[in-house]
């Protein structure tokens, strides 16, 4: 494994790859720092360009963007009380009050250091777990995959913010949107409404750009008139002293571990990791009242955890071909463009690509630390680019990006339509995360189920007789029951209080 890592590092440190790594991190931080632009949007828009690169270069660039985007959001979260990406919401609670209290440098410094540690801790797990897990996963048959994906779908729907019913609907809609076209199992065209362009189905990229970028742009335009109070960044207090490190060491480690674990869970990404770590930090804190008013521990917990999900989420992606987060779903798309099928044999068939990914994840964390420390004030100013200019330009990129992948206008129309659908869903409070995960996982789930049925000539008993499949199935059922019951209880409780008023 050390050999693999060294070869990966050698790849990343080649001049062009290293340039891409730095470029990706800087772009990620920049986009992450601009509220309204998210890492998912940046990576979805970059995807068509990676087409023209070697697969190893493509993954280096995309992973660097991923690391940068998760971190960059803390700048605006701290200085403008606007989370640069959804995963920085928890950071606003303490970062902004602290910055207003005259210590913006300190708040940023804590966030940056915690992000770095979170990234490193999860990277260690990525390095240690990915290969053994992938060897274990070669023994997964169709039924194991089917139940694993089922569990992932339930998980993402039940932990996404908002109502469980809407989470489920969003996930199912994503699944449905992936179904037109030649079916993944028998090659039978379906749901094409006799329109041959639909034989190829709706492709991941235009759907993604639509749902994440276009709907977000429409939202941003609605809110153009909002004013925000800005706080100037200062570099005072940016670097932490040894005493600070020691004081926060436990919290950093705990939050990083939480983030890594949440990242490993299929389909759940940075936002949830940060919420859980923040809640745990608050519960074990001796001064829970300080949380939300500028607590140092709050910033550390949120930022360590959201960065830790990056490495964690790459583990199931590499080992099993199951995305650990929304951005990972896009990374799978990037690999598929290069005809690389993520999954258990990835180490064997494309070892160079895997090791480049793992190495890039490590190097990007160091680059991130340097870039963030060096340019925090400058990046903060980017957030003030007038969005009247920015948003239309991004729409142009959305159009070119959707068109460029397959050179057809059909994809541009799909992108625009899904932008409107995404906007409507978000207005009605349907979470978009489950939608995309459903879109990515449904074809795999159906193909695995039907392959399993082909192998057994129509019997589903292996689901109950194969231990791993059974464990996943029980976990899925338990998760669903538990979330249904807890939501029902909550409704009862709110109705009770509603009546007593």
């Amino acid at each position: 494994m050390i050999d693999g890592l060294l070869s990966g590092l050698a790849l990343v440190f080649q001049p062009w790859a290293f340039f891409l790594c730095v470029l990706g991190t800087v772009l990620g931080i920049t986009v992450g720092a601009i509220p309204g632009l998210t890492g998912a949007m940046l990576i979805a828009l970059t995807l068509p360009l990676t087409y023209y690169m070697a697969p190893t270069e493509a993954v280096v660039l995309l992973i660097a963007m991923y690391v940068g985007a998760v971190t960059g959001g803390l700048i605006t979260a701290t200085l403008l009380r606007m989370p640069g990406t959804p995963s920085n919401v928890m950071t606003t609670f303490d970062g902004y009050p602290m910055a207003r209290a005259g210590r913006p440098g300190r708040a940023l410094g804590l966030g940056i250091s915690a992000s770095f540690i979170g990234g490193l801790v999860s990277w260690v797990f990525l390095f240690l777990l990915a290969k053994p897990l992938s060897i274990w996963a070669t023994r997964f048959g169709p039924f194991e995959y089917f139940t694993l994906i089922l569990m992932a779908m339930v998980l993402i729907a039940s932990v996404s913010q908002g109502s469980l019913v809407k989470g489920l609907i969003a996930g199912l809609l994503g699944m449905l949107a992936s179904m037109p076209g030649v079916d993944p199992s028998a090659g039978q065209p379906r749901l094409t409404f006799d329109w041959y362009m639909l034989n190829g189905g709706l492709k991941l990229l235009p759907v993604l750009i639509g749902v994440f970028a276009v709907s977000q742009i429409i939202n941003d335009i609605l809110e153009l008139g909002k004013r925000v109070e800005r706080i100037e960044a200062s570099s005072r207090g940016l670097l932490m002293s040894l005493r600070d490190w020691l004081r926060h060491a436990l919290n950093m480690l705990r939050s990083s571990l939480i983030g890594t674990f949440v990242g490993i869970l299929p389909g759940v990404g940075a936002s949830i990791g940060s919420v859980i770590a923040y809640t745990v930090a608050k519960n074990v804190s001796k001064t829970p009242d300080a949380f939300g008013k500028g607590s140092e521990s709050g910033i550390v917990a949120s930022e360590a955890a959201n960065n830790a999900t990056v490495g964690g989420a790459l583990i199931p992606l590499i080992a099993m071909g199951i995305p650990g987060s929304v951005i990972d779903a896009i990374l799978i798309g990037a690999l598929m463009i290069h005809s690389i099928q993520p999954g258990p044999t990835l180490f064997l068939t494309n070892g160079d690509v895997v090791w480049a990914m793992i190495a890039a994840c490590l190097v990007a964390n160091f680059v991130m630390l340097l870039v963030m420390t060096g340019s925090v004030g400058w990046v903060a100013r980017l957030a003030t680019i007038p969005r009247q200019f920015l948003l239309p330009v991004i729409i142009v990129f959305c159009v070119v990006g959707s068109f460029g992948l397959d050179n057809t206008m059909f994809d541009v129309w799909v992108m625009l339509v899904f932008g409107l659908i995404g906007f409507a869903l978000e207005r009605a409070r349907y979470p978009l995360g489950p939608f995309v995960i459903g879109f990515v996982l449904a074809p795999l789930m159906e193909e695995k189920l039907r392959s399993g049925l082909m192998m057994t000539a129509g019997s589903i008993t292996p689901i109950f007789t194969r231990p791993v499949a059974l464990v996943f199935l029980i976990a899925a059922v338990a998760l669903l029951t538990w979330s249904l019951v807890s939501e029902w209880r909550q409704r009862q409780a709110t109705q009770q209080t509603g009546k007593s008023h």
Partner: protein
Amino acid sequence: MSPSVDRRTDIGVALGLIVICAAIIIETLDLPPGTFEPLGSAPVPRTTATIIILLCGLVIARAARRPASAGGNTGESGNAGEEGDEPANGYGHALVTVLLTLAYAAAIHMRLSTFAVLTTLYLVATIGWLTGFRPRLLPAIAVTALVVGFGCQYIFTRIFVVDLPGLQ
């Protein structure tokens, strides 16, 4: 959890989803049964669509039961929340941008002109509209539009070979 969406949006979106799912169910009816396994191509989309319809029914039932006034601005903070903060012209801006974007895509589709020209026109119109065509900003808008329009055309037809309508 908390009923933070106004009732009409909730019911409207759910009804829209039901219509889409119904169309999909109808489209699955004439698919042949499976030859290699008992399922075939139809059941998975059909089941998915059916469950969505049932869940949408639940959403509608819940929305209908709560008083109309309970919707609106009680939401927690988030992207879709805080409608009250929006300037009155927010919807106008969004609507015009969407319409201009659709026109832009249609123009590229019909290859009315080169990508550079169409993009420049689109950007001038959209940015101009969003900034209220303030004369002070017009030079900046023109420069942005030209740089992005012709820059993109250069990059995407010369460096990355994309089949955009270009000069030939």
